[in-house]
């Protein structure tokens, strides 16, 4: 049984589904719901995802059946059929996907059956149930991807030996999705693995369609994309492994070794690659050695983020920035099993440190946890405060940041105070970018 959420850091299942369709070139969503669902989601995703925009056919251009009371009473299937027909006439796309809202699901509209009546159209028309009461954006990503894998991806008996698909990065919800995919692709390429990120730079609908030729799916997430990975396994016989989202040199090196081992890539080759990347990486990091040690850039760290970012960022600030990670709040809906799995990610830091880890979906809880983990100021003459600190979270942490005067780096959804294009926090380059952003915030007043 779920509970209320104080300022949710995600939209509904339809938001996740529309995020994927926003990411796929020339995919046209057809919303079967009340008029406001699509526009509500656009306004949340656009601003929250560093101004992702409506793109080709999003925002107020998204086709939507806009059902009203009459349709709810008499059923909305007829209206949906009319909307699909007119959308095919007007909107120029290569794939049409119906996503559904709560009200049409509650009255039992069979959108899949309606979509099937358009089976002979020259472009595919699919339908996916995405009611909000069934889950949030992460679930919506997964259920939409699962539908594509089952209904759209063509079967390939022949697998390409060193080809993988990347799953678990949720477009629109991971604000840096495009940059992250790009860097993961680059990193894997270094060890001779071709990665299909499905909707990365330069990739098209055909990359999704032909994705069943991969030998392996890499889910760069401990918890997301389960349905999708399972669907690939069952429908297309592609096994999958889960890894953490790698951020920075140490984590990415580990990532490369895990994947390298899986493909039995020569260890010398991996060492060579890492040596080169290490040199590039630390050549940059070395630049801030001066200021870091001249003025003491060590901070306490408070991390508030989703299940992909929270463990990765916490480990990064501990083991690369040399900071003291004090509190990490993971903000997803999670099962106890998933929580146990994620908790293990905080063991074994090189620094020997370990933050207090909390699972909580409420924005107001973060402040409460801060007072739990640190001794309160009781007006004693000398007080060892939790400072200087930096918060790495979402824009929802702004109030907390103002109250305690802790600088805030926004990297988890929603990020409304930055414009984000191809910036990455994943991989080697992601580590460099993160160091740039974090330390820029410390020198901004100079």
């Amino acid at each position, binding site marked *: 049984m779920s509970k209320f959420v104080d300022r949710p850091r995600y939209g509904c299942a339809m938001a996740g589904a529309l995020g994927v369709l926003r990411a796929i070139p020339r995919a046209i969503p057809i919303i079967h719901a009340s008029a406001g669902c699509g526009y509500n989601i656009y306004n949340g995703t656009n601003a929250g995802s560093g101004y992702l925009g409506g793109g080709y056919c999003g925002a*107020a251009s998204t086709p939507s059946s806009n059902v009203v009371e009459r349709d709810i009473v008499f059923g909305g299937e007829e209206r949906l059929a009319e909307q699909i027909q007119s959308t095919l006439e007007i909107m120029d796309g290569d794939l049409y996907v119906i996503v559904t809202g709560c009200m049409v699901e509650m009255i039992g509209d069979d959108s899949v059956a309606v979509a099937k009546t358009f089976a002979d159209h020259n472009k595919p028309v699919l339908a996916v149930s995405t009611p909000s*009461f069934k889950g949030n954006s992460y679930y919506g990503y997964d259920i939409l991807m699962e539908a594509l894998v089952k209904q759209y991806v063509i079967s390939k008996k022949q697998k390409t030996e060193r080809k993988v698909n990347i799953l678990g990065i949720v477009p629109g919800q991971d604000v840096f999705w495009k940059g992250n995919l790009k860097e993961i692709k680059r990193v894997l390429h270094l060890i001779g693995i071709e990665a299909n990120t499905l909707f990365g730079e330069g990739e098209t609908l055909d990359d999704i369609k032909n994705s069943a030729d991969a030998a392996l799916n890499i889910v760069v997430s401990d918890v997301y994309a389960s349905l999708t990975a399972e669907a690939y396994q069952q429908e297309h016989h592609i096994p999958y492994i889960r890894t953490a989202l790698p951020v920075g040199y140490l984590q990415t090196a580990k990532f490369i070794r895990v994947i390298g081992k899986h493909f039995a890539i020569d260890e010398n080759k991996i060492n060579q690659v890492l040596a080169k990347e290490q040199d590039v990486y630390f050549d940059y990091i070395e630049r801030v050695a001066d200021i870091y040690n001249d003025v003491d850039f060590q901070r306490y760290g408070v991390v508030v983020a989703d299940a992909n970012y929270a463990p990765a960022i916490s480990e990064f600030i501990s083991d690369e920035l040399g900071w003291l990670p004090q509190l990490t709040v993971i903000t997803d809906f999670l099962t106890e099993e998933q929580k146990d799995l994620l908790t293990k990610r905080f063991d074994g830091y090189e620094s020997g440190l370990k933050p207090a880890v909390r699972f909580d979906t409420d924005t107001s809880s973060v402040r409460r946890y801060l007072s739990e983990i640190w001794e309160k100021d009781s007006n004693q003459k000398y007080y060892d405060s939790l400072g200087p600190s930096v918060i790495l979270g979402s824009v929802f942490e702004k109030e907390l940041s103002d109250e305690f005067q802790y600088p805030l780096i926004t990297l988890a959804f929603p990020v409304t105070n930055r414009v984000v294009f191809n910036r990455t926090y994943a991989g080697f380059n992601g580590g460099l970018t993160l160091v740039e952003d974090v330390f820029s915030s410390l020198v901004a007043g100079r």
Partner: protein
Amino acid sequence: MTIENAAPPREERLKAGIAFCGTCAELRSTLDKEDGGCLNAANRSFSQTHGCQFTLSLGILNSLRNTVVIMHGPIGCGFCSTGNVGTGKAFKRLRDPKAEGLIWLSSNLDETDVIAGGEKKLRETILYADKEFRPETIVVASSCVPALIGDDVDAILDGLQQDTAAELVPIICEGFKTKLMATAYDAVYNGIIKKLTKYRLRDEYFTESEFDKQKRQYQISRTVNVFNVGSMSRADEIEIKRLLQALDLTVNFLPCYSALDDFSNALEASLNVSICGTHDDYYLKYIAEHFHIPYLIDTIPIGRKNTNRWLLKIAENFGVVEEAKVLIKQENAILDRSLEPFRKILKGKRAYISGGEVRIIATAEVVQDLGMEIAGLKGHHIDQFVKPIFESLENSDDIYINIATQHPFEQVNLVRRLKPDVLIIHTGAGNITAKHGLPVLPLYGPSYNYLGYSGTYEIARRLNRIMKNSQFNKNLSKYRSLPYRDEWYEKEPFAYIKK
């Protein structure tokens, strides 16, 4: 006027419509028919997403001060508020430097609740919000799911009221109820009427002297409430205040950015004036009937003619017509002179104007005042409130007008035919509008002055600036394509409107 449990849809209450394509003359003659002509029933066989009454209600609710908003629905309802976190706080602080940022909660109805009802979750959400944030007001905006499962939100709130410090306000605004998103205004006022519109008992009234009482009553006789809109700026309010203060009137602004007591305080006034007629009639009629404050719903103070008219109408109510005429004369003379340099540059340029019905027509008057031409108009919806504003337009009979809540597919078709030089446009479809490759002026907004005389100058100044360089949009029109098939541009723009 009895107050219903929920505001009725505007297609029923006002015979408002959302689909029309034709000339202004045709539209006016249709409007003059008793039942709104064919406008009311019309809809589309192809539609695109736009706001619903739930999301538009948030435009007002999110602005209220010392208030926590509860989205009673599944996790996604009210997701749009994410976009208002930073800006909302900044705009509140322009009215109250200590104002808190926006806080909202989702009751997060899931599959179990859909079967069992959302009452328990809603109660828990309210009690947490009350204890955690200690707001003056907790507003519960109720979405499609609770409406379908039959949650009695009013009863739940009534039952909880004695357990909370905050005043609990129900807003019944499920999206599927109406095709007119403007029903949102009525939905919000419906909740405000139920819980916040009441006389405040002030102890000092029992002990005040006859002289103090007369003084107070005189003060009330010189006080006007101006009903603002969420998309106007603090600069707009300052301009309106300046003009009304020049007539020796005291001004209150509500409902946007109000705190709880403001709704009671506003009952001590002599006139309620709407900024935009399409917003407030539901509430102002109620106040007139139950609290005996007359109201004025006429034009919107955008542009010289409409601002003149708006001020004069207010002045008539307070017996200061002569003073108003002097003020108007002076303001017009200075503004007219100041617009001259812009007229020289803008003369003959053609503007396509799209947005709320009232504001597009009023903006069209500004465009004419600048010596520009109106290439075409597009309004979110249509009802009787647009009539007085039409009077300010010259030679409008043959101007093409499209009624569509957003629906950029009709806009692209029309813009290709009408070939304007500049687009003056409501937010929400920038990704499409940019690809016309034209300069775009946002139609009003919460961060700049648009109303009153100073607003007219601002429009001219910004138009002039924006038209100097449209490279950004030009590049996008060259290098990115619109999502509509070529066949669509060959069809008539109203091909998908069904009667």
